[in-house]
């Protein structure tokens, strides 16, 4: 792999992202469905965060809110200190062109299937180039960084799913955004392909300083991120940090017990909360 700085390209400064007491509702035929119920999350600039959780927990909603695709029903979503929910259409377009890149589920939806990987990277840079001038790294250089120059002239539609996903990630980072949002980047991939994608994500964080938020069901993928946040029933339930998993106390004081603790304290249990000097004890009644 070639060092970016050696090629004269300045790494992008990662953008911090924050969700403050975010509630989001989806309209449905039976009324509104609560997707997020007061989520607080701080993502430091240049960090990598994995969002874990079962289907329907609200992971992808968090990404969509950060990308400005939805406006939060309540609360604030800040990217680089700016409230995404208050942005107009033009500011949103600028945000998407320069600051936030979203790679949605399914590699095909992030690529022009009839174009080559090189063309896709070029296409991905157009929005930023129109606002900021020529990109710091041209497609060839970018592919070189990810050791994927052999893909430059290959048509995306003819590539294997794993390579397509890699191309989608490279295209996502092509405009050198401050925040890269990856929705299930490794789902349905073979382990080798998954590892190649994860390697690319590591490169992005390490070389460009880009803040990466990725949604996954896969614990292995989550472990590749510096921080793992579990979302359950629209709340932040737990957070893995430095190899340890922590339960997270919500602003309203609620606490989601880890799954294994539910064996001891099944739902409906009455517990006595005993405050000790430096900890709290839960005693079953």
């Amino acid at each position, binding site marked *: 792999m070639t060092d970016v700085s050696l090629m004269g390209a300045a790494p992008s400064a990662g953008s911090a992202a924050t969700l403050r007491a975010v509630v989001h509702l989806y309209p449905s035929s039976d009324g509104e469905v609560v997707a997020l119920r007061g989520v607080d999350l701080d993502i430091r600039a240049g960090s990598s965060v994995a969002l874990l959780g079962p289907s329907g927990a609200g992971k992808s909603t968090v990404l969509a809110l950060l990308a400005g695709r939805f*406006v939060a029903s309540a609360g604030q979503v800040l990217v680089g200190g700016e409230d995404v929910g208050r942005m107009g259409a033009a500011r*949103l377009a600028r945000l*998407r062109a320069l600051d936030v*890149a979203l790679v949605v589920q399914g590699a095909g939806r992030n690529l*022009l299937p009839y174009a080559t990987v090189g063309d896709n990277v070029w296409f991905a840079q157009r929005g930023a180039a*129109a606002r900021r001038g020529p990109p710091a790294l041209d497609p060839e250089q970018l592919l070189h960084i990810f050791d994927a120059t052999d893909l430059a002239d290959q048509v995306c539609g003819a590539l294997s799913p794993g390579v397509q996903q890699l191309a989608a990630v490279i295209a996502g980072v092509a405009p050198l955004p401050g925040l890269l949002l990856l929705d299930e980047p490794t789902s349905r991939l073979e382990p080798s392909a998954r590892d190649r994608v994860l390697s690319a994500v590591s490169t992005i964080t390490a070389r460009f300083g880009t803040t990466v938020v990725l949604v996954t069901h896969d614990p292995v993928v989550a472990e590749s991120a510096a921080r793992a946040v579990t979302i359950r029933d629209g709340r932040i339930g737990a957070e893995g940090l430095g190899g340890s998993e922590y339960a997270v106390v919500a602003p309203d004081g609620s606490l989601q017990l880890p799954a294994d603790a539910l064996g001891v304290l099944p739902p409906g249990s009455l517990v006595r909360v005993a405050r000790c000097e430096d900890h709290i004890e839960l005693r079953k009644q």
Partner: protein
Amino acid sequence: MMLAVAAVAVAGGAVGPVFLRSAGDSSLVAAVGAAPVASTVTTSGQGGRALWKELERLGAAPPGGRKGWFGPPSIEGAAGVRLTDAQGNPFATQLIARSGLCAHLSFATGHCPRGVGEAAISARSARILDVGLGSRLRTTTTPGFNAPRLSVVGIYRLPTVTSAGYWNDPADFSFGAGTPNLGAVDATMVSPPTVWLAAFLGDVPSLSMTWQARPSGLRNGPLGALRQALVAYRTRASRYGLTVSTGLFGLLGGVRSAGTSAATVADVASFELVGVGLLVLYLVVTTAAADRRDETELAARRGFARRQALIVAVGDVGVMLALSLPLGLAAAWAVVQAASGLFSNGTPVTLDWGAVAAAVAVVAAGLLAAAVATWDLWRTPGRAADRKSRSRAARAAAESLAVALAATGLVALAATGSLSGGGRDPLALAAPGLLAVGAGVLGLRLADAMLRLALRATAGSSNLGPFLAVRAIVRTQPSPLRRTLALTAAVTLAGFGVEAWAVTAANRSRVALVDNGAALVADVSAPAGSSLATLVDRADPQGRTAMAVEEIRSLSGDTLAVQADRLAAVAAWPARLSSRPVSTLARYLDPPSPSPISFTGSALSADVSLSRGSPPLLLTATVYNNTAQEEEVTPFATLRAGTRRVTASLSGFCTTTCRLVNLSPTVAGGNGAVPPHVTLALLHLSTLDPGRPTTLAIHAGVRNAWAAEPPGVIVAHGAGGIRFVIPGGDLTAQGTQLTPVDAPSPIPAVATTTALTLGAVTPGSTEFTATGLDGNPIDVAGNVSATRLPELGSNAVLVGLGNAELAQTGPSVAVSQVWLRGRSAAAVLQRLERLGVKVNSELPASTALSQLDHEAVSVVYALVLGAGTGAALLAITVTVFMFFAGRRRRRAGLHALLVGGVPSASLRRAVMVETGIVLLVALALGAVTAWAASGLALASLPELTGGSGGVPLHHHVVAAPLLAVLAALAGAFAVLTALAAPLILGRGSRKVRRGES
């Protein structure tokens, strides 16, 4: 594909102005060609050399300057003079000097007159004047003035006089006219100075300068500018005491008036084609943009600027539309060029600014349609939420607006009468478009609802194909049913275009046939002594091809005498022309009557019984010679009471067939004592032919075989003879006529409503007098009325030829004709010629039809047909397009089903059923709408500039052309339906199938 659709739409916009321009020019060319005199501007005055020079000066600057409206002028000077021959006999002639004269005369001998006193005369004038080259002619102008002699330097051949030619006035060559004391000879051609001499001799020459309008020049000149130019020219001319006259304004006004109707028809037709084109273009753009949705959404996620997003969404659409401009213009020109056979000869096909502007407008509208179609895609990406509901609401609003517009338009059209048949409004052409949009929207909703029901019904079926097809239509966004709106409009326009063209063409043909009388009308002369009807019977024994006709035209009304038994087969007689069907007219016109009492011989002998007490009576017989067409009155010996035979000499009058017209008894020797009633019985009638008596059938015992005038005479038809009881007063006063009833009286006739109105003795009566074949009045009963009669005008009667001949008492003054129809017409005509009939001229109905077909309002229906054809092509094009556009997404979905285990045969069937449903709905809706639109609008469309002249026009929907178009479209749609599965599934499905195996 998109380029093709856009090019058709642009061509649709441009073809109207191009076609209309050519149609207008065609009308102008035809009008100017048909009325060369009316299309001239003549400047005239009286004077000599000075005035001639002024005319030359005026001629240097034509009206309108260099606009090219007129050709070079022709100046003529004419003076009436008398020539005297060697014996001193005077002859009248015109001295004529004219510009270009020498180029338009050919000389038998000598040369064209150039010097003063030189003259050229015609060969026949030279003969009667007994002069030759070098002779000198003495001239006088008015009595008392003597002119110098003219020297004959040339003998010219008579030129051909035609209305459009250089020599266009037959009066210039009026040899043989004049009076017994002053005969006329042909014009004497001289040079201008010779004519000027006449100015000093008492007869001031008439000078005139004629500008002939050039159709090609007038095409470029607006009427207002031409009028201004002529007013200015007239003012200039009046300074020299010259007057200016022209029929140009009336001519151009007529052309423009006819052109206005044509223009509206063309505009509406073009508008509808453009409308369908834009609708299709909108559909194509929407489909193309939907196919590009992934790219556009990707661009939105990448934060593309508005301009970039626009290029991604509709960049290629814009390029296609831009390219379609020259292509569409070229196509419009090519289409009109291909249709140039419809126009008068020499009509150019040109693209003018109007066509370019129309094409640009279509492109602009196409871009707007593209922008609207892709609005959601290319606008700066905002929030995804609410878009779907907004778009649904917008679609519902647009559909409601379309239905409301259609309903309002139809109500408005119906309210103004244009759809009730009460008016002739070109805007009725908008009816199919309005109906198509309204019906399309409602049909689309109905089909959608029915398919939703079908979805439930097919859900439990083991047959997967139909279920998948219905599901694809109901669930896919945008629904394939949306295509039905454009397709319905296209099918409607195609059906209506063909129907309008077919109905108007049939009406023109109907009018042309009635104008002509029959498919072919020949003016003929039968050999002397022959009956034309008899010859026609021999030449066409079947009675299906030819009909003898005698025609009288008079100021008081025209009469047509025809062979009644051939009328239905040969004459142009459209339904509803008369109050009774033509098939029943033969019996009406020619009811059974006793045969005429016809004979030849030297004398006529009668056995007559006269009642006792009767004074001696003088009996005369009126006989009519059919060949000589003359009548003769011959007396018998005086009758006395009792029975006796009396003889009347025919004095060689009846060597050819004669007919007894009547017997007339009067009191011999003037007034005597006459009883109240006298009974006269005719017992026997015979002729001596020659010397040998021949008994004639007097129809004794046959009821109503004889009639008598005045009405007081009683007629008894006994077996032994005819007995007449005559009031005594009638034998002394006005006389009595005893007439064999060999023809009905009054003669049954078909009379036009005008003839009935003008001729009826009392209001409501059907009896009146018409003109007989000999020009004398005949009594007719017009118990059958007609809106008009074939060939003749609206003030005319039609009678049986046999009856008309029996009513004849003098030589015929009628024009003899043979009317023909069918393939055998030429053969029958040849047979007639072999029988001695001379054919003087032939006039086919196609001549009249050709004139009608070249009227601007007629020609423009070809454009309506073209719009229909264009719409049909658009329908097919858009159907093909829908296979290609979006097939990537469709294929992906289908492949997912394949992978999921759905058999490929079910998928192919699903695609076919889906395509078939969409096309079938459009075809059915389009067919019903075209039928309804035709029924509503056809009667309201302008068809013939001069009206139908009483010929009933038919506007009911003719099934054949409509069904033919629908069958063609159904065939095309069926092929496309069969191709749908392979086109959409493509090779990918085979790959997957291989994977399955």
